[in-house]
């Protein structure tokens, strides 16, 4: 990863939550796997990036998907009847940053008490936590390379926290 810490605002056109029930779990998994063109869904805590779609398994039966395809949400809604899974459009609900480069881990560890080393948190892992009382969902692509989303109303505060925490390392806004 690069030596320079960089921060960039990101927003995806579509972001959606899919939640199934234990009795519809298998069916839901199959529908999602087929949609994504993969054999099996990743395990809890992992995410994949497939055809510009990010797909994460947050907990059993609880999935998050996002991409820049603004039709993604309506496409997904059509796949599930109400008794199989709930689909919640959260496209506007989250705003995020891409954080990468040297000291990304150290910056994040100012606010979260989670071991971010590759041994404890391998690449392509997703986790939810909070920084400075702001709920976040974090996607670790690889060491020192993250996508982090907060709820939209918190974003200004979250961004200010990130910038302030980056001051001692020096950073670039990209």
């Amino acid at each position, binding site marked *: 990863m690069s030596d320079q810490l960089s921060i960039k605002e990101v927003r995806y056109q579509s972001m959606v939550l899919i939640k199934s029930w234990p009795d519809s779990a298998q069916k839901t998994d199959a529908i999602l796997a087929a949609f994504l063109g993969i054999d099996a869904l990743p395990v809890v805590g992992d995410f994949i990036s497939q055809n510009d779609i990010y797909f994460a398994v947050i907990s059993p039966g609880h999935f998050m998907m996002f991409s820049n395809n603004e039709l993604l949400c309506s496409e997904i809604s059509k796949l599930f009847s109400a008794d199989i899974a709930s689909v919640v459009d959260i496209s506007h609900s989250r705003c995020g940053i891409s954080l990468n480069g040297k000291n990304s881990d150290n910056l994040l560890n100012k606010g979260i008490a989670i071991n971010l080393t590759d041994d404890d948190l391998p690449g392509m892992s997703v986790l939810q*936590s909070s920084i400075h009382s702001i709920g976040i969902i974090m996607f670790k692509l690889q060491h020192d390379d993250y996508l982090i989303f907060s709820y939209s109303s918190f974003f200004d505060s979250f961004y200010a926290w990130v910038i302030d925490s980056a001051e001692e390392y020096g950073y670039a806004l990209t």
Partner: protein
Amino acid sequence: MIIKCPHCGPREASEYTYIGDASIQRPDHNDTDMEKWSDYVFMRENPRGAHMEHWQHTSGCRSFVKVLRDTVTHEISDVTLEGPWQAEDKS
């Protein structure tokens, strides 16, 4: 105090919200017996030692866990996922 969430791994207690005593049962929704409801809402043992309790991982996956905690030493000896889902074996 660190609670090991079955989905998210070990996290600080500040990520969780204490929900209540897990040794008591909520009466059935249609039960109208006021004594039972009163016991459920108000009556608690206050043990010195092992205490079974619900916590919700509010800053994380929002799951509910049943925690066996020693009220004197704060040592947590067991954490199990509650609800209709089974935790995935992460190993």
